Structure formats: structure tokens, C-alpha cells
């Protein structure tokens, strides 16, 4: 959807307005109006009527500041930047100007350790009155700009438009009560000078007025040369309520100046007549700044305060939204936690009987296994004594007589007997793993039948003759 940009000017006893459509491919002119004030002067009702009659539907407009409202001034401040520079400039301006004003920095020029700053100063009271008038007419001024900026943008925009259309970087902007001479270079308005006469003082028959104009132009060119050290541009663009057939154009040409009025516009859309294009060109130039946040936008103090408040409210709204989302997230997380806990517990309750049964079975199984181990150990150990006696008997040396055997609680308390040589007996016993732990108890008594011995030791039922 193309965006509508409307620029309005209340100067030279007339209303001038142009509406452009801004879309991805560029801009087009959709409508314009140039209407003289009524005899009673401009008022809100008349403005509203003209606005409606001419079919302008956009009520958010850009205001082109009337010339008398805009004062240019240069101040020297220390080489600072950002808010510090603004504060330094404001301090300098406040020292010279006690009125209620707003200012805008339009160019910077470093000079050693200082900075030459060119500013425009606008009387805030008069600006507020003008904004109020437009507000009563149903028009809301979103920002204000000054004509020099508009002319500058217009000249830059048309720099390479059509080879046979001469291009100027210097201009003369004719208004009713004053004329402005300016020189643009690149992105900057490097020189401007406002002087009298204006269109009101210039009549074909008033030679004094013309002579004054020529003199002022000459002085302006000299001042430019003196200030910048550069030769003035060869071509002068003429803006304001003036067309190529105007007598001023002829007189300037006769005086040797190369002048040109805008005749063609590289924007498409509704064609603007040659008569009105010089008047509307600065407004069109201001419209280009709608997409340029860094442009020279002027706001009244009230507008700035409202902007500040709007930013604060947007910040608060953003924080509230973030807080809301965050709170909602935490609340949902808590709810989810509660839900999960509840469901888990409900599920556990539902399965309690089954779970308890399984646990009892598990416990019972463990008890059974313990009993099984005990019973198996018991049954497995029943033949231990017999097995031991069998092994023992099978490994006795020849001639060995066993006299006594006492076995109790799985251990050999005493095995006594007679053998030809006890060492042979012991050697034989050591060769059998289950009998290896048997050891001599007490003395070996030598008798007629042989050597009498006593043995004791444990029984190892799990060991078998290998």
C-alpha cells in the first residue's frame, strides 16, 4: 500500500500543498493545490474547506516553515559530538536569545579545536500558533522543515535528470517579503543568505527594487567567495512564486546571470505546471525527508514533549508486554508443574494396589531366595563328613591305625592314631587339597607300634580331589 506524504506551506499569502505517493519503485505526485488566502486571511475553517474541496484525505502533514519563522545563525563551540554538542550550541544560543525557541543543527565545520555550527532557530511561540491553526483545521503536523532543505533535496534529486535540463547548485528562493540565496554541495547547504527585497518589493516598474536585488545577489556571491574561497556556481536555480516568463528572470538574465526555473520533474504522476513547480519544488524536496530520519526535522517544544511521552509510554507498554509474557510463561510453568504433580499422584494412587502387591512379591521372593540358599547349603553339606573320612582313609600311609576321631560342627577336633612315620603321613595329607589344612596337635609319641599323632583342622566340603 503506497504511503501518502503531504507537505503544506502557508506563506506568500497563499496555501500551497502537494501530496505524493511513496512506494517501492519511488514517488509519484498524486495532487497539489496553490490557493490564495481569502481577504479575511487564513483561518481554520477556510483551510478545512479548501482541504476537503481539493480532495486531500491525508490529515497528517509535513509543514514547510514560513521564511520569517526561520533564522539562520552560525556559532562556534568546542569540538564535541552528540548530545554534548547540542547542549553547547543551546547554551550559546540561549546566551544571545532570551525568547522561547527551538533550533536545529544543519551543518558542522571543524575549525582547529572548535566547531563552526550552522543552526536554524525557530520561534517556538510562533511555531506553536501555526501548528494550532493547522490543528484546528483538522491537520496534524507530524514534523516541520525549512524551505532551504527542501530546495537542497530537490536540486540533489534532479542533478542528472535529462541532459538538456541545466542543473544548478545555487538557488534564489523568492518569497513575498524576503529572498534567500543559497549554495548546496553534496549533502550540505554550505552557504545561505537572506536579504530584502522580496516579491512584494519587486515590480517591473520599480527599478530601485530590481537594483537592490541585483546588488544583494552580487553581495551574496562575494560573501560566498569570501567565506568558502570557491567560485560561485555558474547556474542559479529560481524558486518561489516565479516562472520562466517572470520579469525577474529576464532582468537577471539581462544582468548576466545564468538562471533556470524548474520546468520538469522526474517524478511521475500528476503533472505540475511550469508556473507552480518553482513554488512547489521545495515542498516536494521536503517530502523526500519523510524517509530520512536523519533529515532536518523541526519540532516544537510541545511536539518534543509529546514525542518523549509517547516513547515513554511505548517503553512502558513494551516492558508491560514483556512482563506479561514472562509472567504468563512462569504462571503456565507453575500450572504445568501442579498439573504434572497432580497427575503423577493420581496415577500412583490408582496403581497403589498393584504396586504394593508387586513390592510384596519382590520382598517375598528375596526371603524365599534366602531360605533356599540356607536349605541348599544345608543339604549340600550333609556328606561333608563322610567325604572327608573317605579321603582321609584313602590317603593314609600303610600301617597307619586310627584310634580316635572327634568331629564337631564341621571341624576336626581330634584325629589320633599311630603311623610308622608321622612325616610321611603329613606329606601324604598335604598332597590332597581337602586334607591340606590338617595339622599336628601336641607331641608325637613314639611307641612300639609306631609314632602316635594327633591332628586337627577344618573340613572343606567344597574341595574335591583333583
Amino acid at each position, binding site marked *: 500500500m503506497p504511503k501518502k506524504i503531504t507537505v503544506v506551506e502557508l506563506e506568500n499569502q497563499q496555501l500551497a500543498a502537494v501530496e505524493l505517493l511513496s512506494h517501492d519503485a519511488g514517488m509519484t505526485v498524486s495532487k497539489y493545490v496553490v490557493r490564495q488566502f481569502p481577504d479575511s486571511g487564513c483561518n481554520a475553517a477556510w483551510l478545512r474547506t479548501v482541504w476537503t474541496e481539493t480532495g486531500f484525505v491525508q490529515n497528517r502533514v509535513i509543514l514547510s516553515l514560513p521564511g520569517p519563522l526561520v533564522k539562520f545563525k552560525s556559532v562556534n563551540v568546542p569540538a564535541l559530538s552528540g548530545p554534548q554538542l547540542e547542549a553547547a550550541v543551546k547554551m550559546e544560543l540561549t546566551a544571545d536569545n532570551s525568547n522561547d525557541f527551538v533550533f536545529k543543527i544543519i551543518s558542522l565545520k571543524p575549525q582547529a579545536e572548535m566547531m563552526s555550527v550552522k543552526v536554524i532557530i525557530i520561534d517556538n511561540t510562533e511555531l506553536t500558533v501555526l501548528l494550532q491553526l493547522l490543528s484546528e483545521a483538522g491537520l496534524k503536523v507530524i514534523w516541520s522543515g525549512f524551505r532551504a532543505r527542501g530546495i537542497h533535496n530537490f536540486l540533489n534529486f534532479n542533478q542528472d535528470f535529462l541532459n538538456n535540463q541545466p542543473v544548478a547548485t545555487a538557488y534564489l528562493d523568492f518569497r513575498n517579503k524576503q529572498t534567500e540565496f543559497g549554495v548546496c554541495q553534496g549533502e550540505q547547504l554550505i552557504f545561505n543568505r537572506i536579504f530584502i527585497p522580496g516579491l512584494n518589493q519587486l515590480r517591473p516598474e520599480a527599478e530601485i527594487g530590481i537594483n537592490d536585488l541585483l546588488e544583494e545577489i552580487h553581495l551574496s556571491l562575494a560573501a560566498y567567495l569570501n567565506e568558502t574561497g570557491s567560485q560561485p556556481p555558474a547556474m542559479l536555480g529560481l524558486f518561489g512564486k516565479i516562472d520562466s516568463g517572470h520579469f525577474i528572470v529576464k532582468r537577471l538574465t539581462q544582468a548576466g546571470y545564468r538562471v533556470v526555473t524548474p520546468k520538469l520533474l522526474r517524478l511521475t504522476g500528476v503533472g505540475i505546471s511550469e508556473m507552480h513547480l518553482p513554488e512547489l519544488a521545495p515542498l516536494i524536496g521536503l517530502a523526500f525527508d519523510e524517509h530520512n530520519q536523519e533529515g532536518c526535522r523541526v519540532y516544537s517544544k510541545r511536539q518534543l514533549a509529546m514525542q518523549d511521552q509517547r516513547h515513554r509510554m511505548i517503553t512502558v507498554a513494551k516492558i508491560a508486554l514483556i512482563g506479561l509474557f514472562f*509472567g504468563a510463561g512462569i504462571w503456565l510453568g507453575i500450572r504445568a508443574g501442579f498439573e504434572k*504433580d497432580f497427575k503423577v*499422584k493420581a496415577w500412583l494412587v490408582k*496403581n497403589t494396589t*498393584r504396586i504394593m502387591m508387586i513390592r510384596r512379591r519382590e520382598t517375598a521372593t528375596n526371603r*524365599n531366595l534366602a531360605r533356599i540358599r540356607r536349605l541348599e547349603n544345608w543339604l549340600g553339606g550333609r556328606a561333608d563328613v563322610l567325604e572327608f573320612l573317605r579321603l582321609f582313609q584313602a590317603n593314609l600311609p600303610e600301617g597307619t591305625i586310627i584310634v*580316635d576321631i572327634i568331629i564337631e560342627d564341621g571341624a576336626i577336633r581330634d584325629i589320633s592314631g599311630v603311623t610308622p612315620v608321622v612325616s610321611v603321613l603329613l606329606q601324604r595329607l598335604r598332597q590332597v587339597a581337602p586334607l591340606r589344612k590338617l595339622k599336628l596337635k601336641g607331641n608325637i609319641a613314639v611307641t612300639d607300634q609306631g609314632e602316635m599323632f594327633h591332628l586337627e583342622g577344618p573340613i572343606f566340603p567344597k574341595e574335591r580331589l583333583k
Partner: protein
Amino acid sequence: MTGRERNLGLAVITVIVVTLIGRNFGQLVFQPQKQETAPQITLQAAAHLLAAEGNIQARYQASQNHLRVLEKHFLTLEDPEQAEIELLGAIEAEINSCGLAVDSKSTLQISADTIGVTLEGKTAPLALTRFLYNVSRNRYGFEINRLQIHSLPDETLLSYQIVLVSLLVERKGEAL
């Protein structure tokens, strides 16, 4: 940090802290009623138990069956006096079958679940050996707790003292 940013940060931190406190408070106060009857077990443990239900049941059944088989070798604690009598009867049967000469015999209670029989006498070595072999394979799970043998070469007999013990089991398998 500007004053506004600081205040914003404090506000955000306050919101977070209040919310967390409120969450814990809410959990403490508004816990579901049924929590009191829920078993003291975590969800994961409960899930594992239920998943292993079949396995646990199978192990239980197998342990029951095996225990029943083993307990058949033993007398029960349900009637200790009857167990003593049966035990004595079993020993006497073995004595008779082996021809063991017994001078005296008696029963004894070694512990709450262990009873035994004491035998003393003089007998032929073969009879004693056969007797010991038979009791070690008897269905009642006898174990030789004490064996004292003294040889009598002049009589070619053995003087013996034997204490045989057996376990008494509580019941046949675990009842639920």
C-alpha cells in the same frame, strides 16, 4: 546504566522473585488432597516396578516352587513334638536297616528351628559306615553335627557317639 534502566532491571528482578515465591507458596498450600494416600515411591520407580511386574511375578513363582521342593526334605515347625517323633522314627528305621548297635539314644533341641538325635553305642565298623552313608542321603536332610569314634581293636568294634540334626521349616513356601 541510566536510572531508568536500573529501575527497569530492579522491577524485572522483583517480578521474578515474587513469582517464584508465589509458586512455592502455592505448591505448599494448594497441594492435591490425594497426596496423603499416594505410596511413597517416585514415578520412575513405580513405572519400573510395573514394567517388571511379569518378571517379578515369574521370579516369585519360581522361588516358591523351588522352596517347596527343598522343604520337602525337612520337617515343619507347625508341630515340633510330631517332628521329633518322625525324626526319631526315621533314625530308627536307618538303625534297623544298617544293623547299627545302639546303647542309648535321645532327642534334643539345639535351637528354635533345629532338632537332633543323639546315638551312642558300640558297633561294627561296617554297620557304622553304612549308617552314616544312609543318613547322609536320607530324605529328612540329616547333618552330622558331632561324630566321635573310638576304635576297640580287641573287640573289632567301634565305640561311637553321633549327634544328627535336622532343620525345621516354618511353612511350605511363603504365604501372601
